């Protein structure tokens, strides 16, 4: 009987290649503008991983992943906003975000505690560590509550998609509506830089790129480990036939809640990194189209492959950036990506990862009969 392994069928090669390229990129790409761009796409890659985890492995289609991304982004953006130069220029001892002045009632004191209704919520964010911690904690708590309600009631399939879709829209409205606290539609801009131990991380520095690059590598390996554990295998069983899992004694909802929450935590972490690289947080993170884009990236890359979904997200965004700067493709790009999505769904349900696997199967028949891994591109061993 084969022992369980983190990797099998040699697909560790893809992981090594991915990590080497991601970590080695600054050596060949000296254009900091592009490096910063790639950092953002790596963040999207993390979102792809989060989607693959919930959609591919748990069978939970979350159309509202932007909620967790957005929450993570806002949490760290609040801290960075208070570190911004402009926040110190508002005539008070302690930093106060500029937009709060524009939203303040006449005569309100220029202090974070009471300048606008609800501005006190910002008080703990004066500590950058608080914002960074909350960027993961808040999405995790929200996901825990939401998924406990959904999965204990045995809501599944398209209904989960509808609920998450509705929820991300709702929170988006709330954020826009809470103008005095969130700067509403404009989002949080003009942020300070992340500062750790006195070192400032200018988004256009190679070191900032490495924060993101190391993060995605760690997330990739950690999730890979997670789905290779017995818990990961049991999760896949609940995707295939939840009743059978129940009659074997597994509390299906517990597994779904756990992995849904991990996926949300990754999305929150991604939101935090995005703000560090992009220097803004905006309600557009909670747009439906953004959440659906994530699903498209994962589908094209291969939803049942963590690394496939990550590569799908990075590739699509890199091509999109190039294409949308070419005049000819500017308008047509959305159409092109739509057509690619339809073609992938119809003819390549396992995405790029499935394609790569089939090609590898053609060349390496002696190692693997190919019949064994129909539905999973990176099936974990038991």
């Amino acid at each position, binding site marked *: *009987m084969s022992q*369980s392994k*983190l990797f099998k069928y040699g697909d560790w090669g893809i992981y090594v290649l991915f990590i080497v390229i991601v970590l080695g990129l600054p050596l060949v790409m000296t254009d900091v503008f592009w490096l910063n761009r790639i950092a953002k796409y790596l963040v999207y890659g993390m979102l792809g991983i989060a989607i693959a985890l919930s959609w591919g492995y748990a069978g939970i289609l979350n159309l509202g992943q932007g909620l967790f991304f957005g929450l993570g982004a806002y949490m760290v953006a609040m801290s960075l906003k208070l570190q911004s130069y402009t926040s110190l220029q508002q005539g008070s001892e302690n930093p106060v975000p500029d937009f709060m002045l524009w939203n303040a009632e006449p005569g309100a004191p220029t202090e974070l505690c009471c300048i606008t209704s609800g501005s006190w919520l910002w008080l703990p964010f004066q500590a950058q560590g608080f914002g960074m911690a909350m960027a993961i904690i808040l999405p995790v708590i929200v996901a825990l509550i939401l998924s406990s309600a959904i999965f204990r009631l045995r809501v599944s399939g398209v209904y989960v998609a509808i609920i998450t879709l509705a929820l991300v829209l709702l929170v988006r409205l709330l954020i826009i509506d809470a103008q005095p606290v969130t700067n509403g539609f404009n989002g949080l801009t003009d942020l300070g830089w992340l500062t750790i131990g006195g070192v400032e991380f200018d988004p256009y520095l190679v070191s900032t790129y490495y924060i993101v690059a190391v993060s995605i590598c760690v997330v990739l390996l950690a999730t890979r480990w997670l789905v290779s554990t017995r818990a990961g295998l049991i999760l*896949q069983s609940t995707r295939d036939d939840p009743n*059978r899992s129940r009659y*074997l004694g597994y509390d299906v909802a517990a597994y779904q809640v756990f992995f849904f929450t991990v996926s949300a935590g990754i999305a929150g972490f991604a939101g935090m990194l995005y703000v560090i690289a992009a220097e803004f947080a905006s309600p557009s993170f909670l747009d439906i189209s953004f959440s659906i884009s994530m699903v498209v990236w994962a589908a094209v890359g291969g939803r049942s492959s963590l690394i496939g979904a990550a590569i799908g997200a990075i590739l699509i965004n890199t091509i999109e950036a190039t294409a949308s700067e070419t005049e000819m493709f500017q308008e047509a790009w959305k159409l092109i990506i739509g057509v690619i999505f339809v073609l992938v769904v119809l003819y390549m349900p396992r995405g790029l990862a499935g394609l790569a696997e089939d090609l590898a199967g053609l060349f390496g028949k002696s190692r693997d009969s190919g019949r064994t891994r129909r539905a999973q591109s990176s099936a974990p061993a038991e």
Partner: protein
Amino acid sequence: MVAALTIDGLEVDFGGFKAVNGMSTVINRGELRVVLGPNGAGKTTLMDLISGKTASTAGEVRLFGREITNRPEHQIARAGVGRKFQIPSVFRDLTVRDNLSVAVSHEPRVFRNLRLGMAAADRARIEEVIELTGLEPVLDVVAGDLSHGQMQWLELGMLITQQAKVILLDEPTAGMTQAETSKTADIILRLKGSHTLLVVEHDMAFVRKIAERVTVMHMGKLLAEGPMAKIEQDPAVRDAYLGSGGVQ
């Protein structure tokens, strides 16, 4: 000795229609009990009530003296009840080996399963089950690609791996060829003694091969119980199957 499974006055009311209506029976440890009855007698509903799929409206189910009535399915399963469905229910996208691996469920909690691999004893048990069910040649095939018979054996194998003390089998030979039926009977006979089995079946040749004691249900109630030979001679049972309506 405490009985393996005690069903006491079990009843379910589907808006006025009582599919199971005051059913009682006692199944001893290591016994293989076959449940017979015409269509609509309430056999599958009885299994649903025992395994927690459907909530009963009256009565009790006890497993080795412990009450398990109307608990959530996974708790009943953890208490020791394994169930095989009429339509094979296996994890179609997982390989046969992974299916059996998931069936090692003595530690069902999420955080305790955050580890690679499993204990040597569990692996040895899986090997035993593979040998018993003859699934060796298809271990790396995804379960969805198995033949109907192999799928049924896999599901049986999963129940054995699960170490269910009481196994409920709902028409284990439905849709099987003669050869497959015969192999299924062999597997079930080998389980007798070490496991307690409750089998719903229509195939009389198969029933004669495996049955000792037989319970006959009709209109949600116990109609007759006893050794197969005696049951076949029972006039009430004959009437129920012929539908004379003279049973009530």
